[in-house]
């Protein structure tokens, strides 16, 4: 029998290589599209080429006659089924019924009209081309501000004002703050619509077992249990007969939390045909039919004293919702409101959100989900205030941070920031770039026309969603630890990682707690039949909540191990370390493997103790966590072409305790890449007819490796008191800290020309025009 080997050293905090990688880099991992079931059909979705149109007729006859076509379903077939679900709740929210196939109208380019099922993917695509749809094009609106203007085309005819909801929040006495202010600065700031662009597109395989009345659904999902619950409700399939499997998931960035029309469609199709059916999204469909992110037009007003003391902040958010509400669509801008004060001691805030329907695909949670928008806004406003006051932007920030002893720090938006030392990362990053020297270089360079920019952001974020009352579907996470009779350790986590590396970090945590070798530990996730109910991986919650659940399950097991150890050693009290139970008095010890064997052999049970070594813990967090940090970016602007070069990128992040520096670095690098994408290159552009003009990777500029600067990443460590691991979460930090630092840097480079603000993305032509015009936008 194999035995558990003793582990030589602790692993938490060490650069342990990702245990997931061998299967990923050798191409042997099983992604959704690798799944092939006997007799499986393939589906292709017929989609609208118009942003808004009345469907006059759908003729499926010519397509049905093509070889290999099994069935074609249209809107009529699914008209009585429930809506694609949105679980976010806001008072007065207008919720359009989101049919999985369009009924009499289409509302966005890519709107599903029919699903063609055939023997293979090629035949399905050919038949989809042969479906004849007659449209009457209608006026569309794709811009959220235009949508809210009187006389705009109505996205949904029953709501001519295109307003899905309005939301108001305030804290303190905002008008008082503005009365007391010496200075008020105002700015319109946009966070453009982005496309999450996971490397693996979405896909579904649905397999109905008629005899058992059970369904197995494979979906490229970040939250398989949620998907199971929602599908069970929609189709009336008992949850214990519905298995959802998230196979290897090639990135999500929030876009795979949602349940989509296609998840439902494939469930419908497999039940109708009694055959397994697969649908895999093309990249083009991914552009058109997977959620987008951001889409904000924000109006800020900041009130301050002459000495730089920030008093009050007013914000109006116009959120581009798209045509429908996906899972969390309307909730995302409310996260922006929560984080609108950033890291600053505002006593007074007031926020209004207007959710605008547009003839576009819905927006929803994309890496950062509401916090990048809020951070971008406040960090731009602080720079604008600094310029107004002729104060150094670093000094202004440092003046308004709460001090470390003020934590937990209550915000005017009703949060309690858990722990922080906000000045430290900023000071560290500024020292790293030799800030004062750079300011001198900038001054000198301007004499000869050189455009050097020094930009910073001090960001905070709200992570580890979250205490259950603050979430629509529960905010805890679960873990089961099973020590097998041989002493091998199996972990089942309810978090469903999709690239974050929890198979490594969770094993590190368990290896240290149990004192066993990491090779004796396996972490499973993503299969609802294997793993106890869980919430999923999003909002930087995987380790902060899922890891904490694991920690507590391990504590329960350790107690039980000690009981067995004491029984075997015939001691009153034993300690657990180095993979063994030790009787301190006698010095005798019994190995972990012997204890595991004894626990299952059960010849001699400790008092009031069951055989076996299994523990499950569901952990409900008492608060969110609040990571923070500072990014400093040095840019050089080519005044002849408007092109921006990044000379240095310094990121100092504080995500609390670090389990694995390698994975944290990966998260920071990836996050910065996506933040840089927003700052410099990416934008989802719909024209006035609702056509997506950036609907291919030849038009939509996702950052590539060669476009990235060298990222100098380091950390300060302020443990979170919220969870026993002291971790805060780092999945979104890079994205949140990046875009304002970059934009602040470029605005800084042009500030002597009178430039105060630039909207993203900072394309060369935009910069060139401003330089040409001597600073006038």
């Amino acid at each position, binding site marked *: 029998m194999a035995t558990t080997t003793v582990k030589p050293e602790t692993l938490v905090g060490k650069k342990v290589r990702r245990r997931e990688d061998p299967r990923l880099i050798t191409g042997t991992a099983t992604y959704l599209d690798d799944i092939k079931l006997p007799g499986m059909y393939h589906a292709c979705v017929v989609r609208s080429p118009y942003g808004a149109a009345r469907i006059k007729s759908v003729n499926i006859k010519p397509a049905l006659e093509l070889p290999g076509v099994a069935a074609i379903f249209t809107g009529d077939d699914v008209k009585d089924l429930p809506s694609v679900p949105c679980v976010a709740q806001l008072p007065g929210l207008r919720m359009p019924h989101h049919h999985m196939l369009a009924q009499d109208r289409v509302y966005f380019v890519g709107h599903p009209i029919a699903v063609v099922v055939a023997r293979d993917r090629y035949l399905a*695509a050919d038949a989809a*081309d042969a479906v004849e749809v007659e449209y009457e094009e209608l006026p569309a609106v794709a811009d959220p501000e235009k949508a809210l203007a009187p006389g705009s085309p109505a996205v949904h005819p029953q709501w001519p004002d295109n307003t899905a909801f309005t939301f108001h929040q305030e804290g303190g006495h905002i008008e008082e703050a503005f009365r007391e202010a010496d200075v008020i600065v105002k700015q319109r700031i946009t966070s453009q619509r982005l496309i999450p662009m996971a490397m693996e597109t979405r896909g579904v395989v649905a397999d109905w077992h008629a005899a058992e009345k059970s369904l197995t659904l494979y979906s490229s999902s970040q939250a398989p249990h949620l998907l199971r619950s929602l599908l069970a409700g929609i189709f009336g399939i008992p949850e214990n007969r519905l298995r959802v499997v998230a196979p290897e998931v090639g990135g999500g960035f929030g876009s795979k939390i949602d349940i989509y029309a296609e998840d439902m469609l494939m469930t419908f199709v497999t039940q109708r045909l009694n055959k397994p059916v697969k649908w895999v999204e093309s990249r083009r469909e991914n552009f058109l039919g997977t959620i987008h992110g951001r889409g904000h037009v924000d109006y800020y007003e900041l009130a301050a004293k002459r000495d730089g003391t920030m008093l009050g902040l007013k914000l109006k958010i116009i959120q581009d919702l798209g045509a429908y509400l996906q899972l969390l669509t309307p909730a995302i801008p409310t996260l922006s409101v929560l984080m609108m004060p950033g890291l600053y001691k505002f006593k007074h805030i007031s926020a209004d959100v207007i959710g605008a329907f547009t003839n576009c695909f819905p927006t929803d949670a994309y890496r950062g989900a509401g916090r990048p928008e809020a951070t971008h806004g406040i960090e731009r406003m602080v720079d604008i205030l600094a310029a107004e006051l002729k104060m150094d932007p670093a000094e202004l920030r440092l003046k308004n941070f709460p001090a470390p002893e003020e934590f937990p720090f209550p915000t005017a938006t009703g949060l309690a920031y858990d722990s922080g030392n906000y000045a430290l990362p900023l000071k560290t990053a500024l020292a790293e770039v030799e800030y004062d020297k750079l300011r001198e270089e900038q001054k000198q360079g301007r004499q000869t026309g050189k455009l050097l920019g020094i930009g910073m952001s001090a960001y905070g974020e709200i992570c580890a969603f979250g205490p259950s009352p603050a979430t629509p579907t529960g905010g805890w996470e679960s873990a089961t630890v099973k020590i097998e009779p041989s002493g091998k350790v199996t972990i089942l986590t309810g978090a469903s990682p999709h690239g974050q590396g929890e198979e490594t970090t969770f094993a590190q945590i368990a290896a240290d707690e149990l004192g066993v070798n990491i090779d004796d530990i396996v972490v499973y996730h993503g299969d609802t039949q294997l793993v106890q109910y869980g919430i999923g991986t999003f909002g930087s919650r995987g380790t902060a909540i899922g890891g904490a659940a694991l920690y507590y399950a391990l504590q329960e097991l350790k107690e039980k191990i000690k009981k067995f150890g004491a029984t075997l050693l015939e001691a009153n009290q034993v300690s657990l370390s180095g993979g063994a139970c030790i009787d301190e008095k006698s010095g005798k010890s019994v190995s972990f493997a012997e204890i595991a064997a004894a626990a299952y052999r059960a010849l001699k049970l400790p008092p009031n103790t069951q055989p076996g070594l299994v523990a499950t813990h569901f952990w409900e967090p008492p608060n969110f966590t609040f990571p923070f940090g500072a990014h400093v970016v040095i840019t050089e602007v080519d005044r002849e*072409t408007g092109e921006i070069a990044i000379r240095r990128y310094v990121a100092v992040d504080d995500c609390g305790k670090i389990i694995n520096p390698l994975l944290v670095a990966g998260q920071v690098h990836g996050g910065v890449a996506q933040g840089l994408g927003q700052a410099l290159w990416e934008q989802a552009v719909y024209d006035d007819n609702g056509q997506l003009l950036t609907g291919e990777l030849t038009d939509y500029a996702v950052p590539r490796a060669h476009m990235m600067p060298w990222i100098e990443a380091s950390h300060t460590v302020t443990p979170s008191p919220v969870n026993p691991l002291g971790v805060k979460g780092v999945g979104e930090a890079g994205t949140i800290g990046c875009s304002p630092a970059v934009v602040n840097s470029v605005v800084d480079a042009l500030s002597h020309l009178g430039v105060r603000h630039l909207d993203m993305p900072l*394309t060369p032509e935009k910069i*060139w025009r401003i330089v040409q015009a001597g600073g006038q936008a």
Partner: protein
Amino acid sequence: MIPREFDYEAPTSLQETLQLIASGERKLLAGGMSLIPMMKLRLATPDSLVDLGRVPGLNHIVESSGTLQIGATATHHDIETFPLIRGRCPLLAEAASHIGDVQVRNRGTIGGSIAHADPAADYPAALLALEAQIRLVSASSDRIVPAVEFFLDAFTTALEPGEIVVEVLVPAEPGAEGYSYEKAPHPASGFAIVGVAARIQRSGGKISLARIGVTGLGARAFRAMEAERLLESGSSLDQAVATVGEGEDANSDLYASAEYRKHLARVRAKRALEVALRRAS
């Protein structure tokens, strides 16, 4: 990739290839770096593809009496790295190094690229500046066309139905020449917003020869002949590059307007010429 159904043929000789394409109805497949993505999107739906991959003798790179002969299926990677080209026609190697990414350069071919004639492709600028010639062969003809007469319009060349590009002929560089390819790539596609290829020869402290090829600006790549003339007659760089793109109908898209593109062409032309001047001994 889920294209429409198509026939596929893989001839093993040039003769066989020419017979297959004689009717002009079959589409040639070389590296597939433009054709396959279009078929994937079903924007191109050819009924029949003729794959050049098994045709021998089409990917040679040789020098013969001062002329480099580059076979149509030589890949961008070959052209970027082959010592003969790096030594005897470094401008072409430099232009090739800017195409797409490593994967594209490993698959894509010079013949395929120029026959496709994307208005933002890199080769045309270099081939125009190099005064290259292109050899076109059909079942009944064999002719040589100067690059300047080959690129006619966006995705339109002098190729007649039934003809195939078999090789590109480039004069070998005498050794004292300066050159540069300056490109502003689109951040998504990597294609040139503008790309400028420049060659300079000097004699007695003066510019004795200037050649400037510009891609990405208009519907087809072109030579900035007025700028060339100005440089050869002793005008300043600024005077010369101010004429680049004059009278051209410049492209405009979401990323770069016509006005900006034209400005960028002049800035890039100046930078290309500055490098070329430095390199010219």
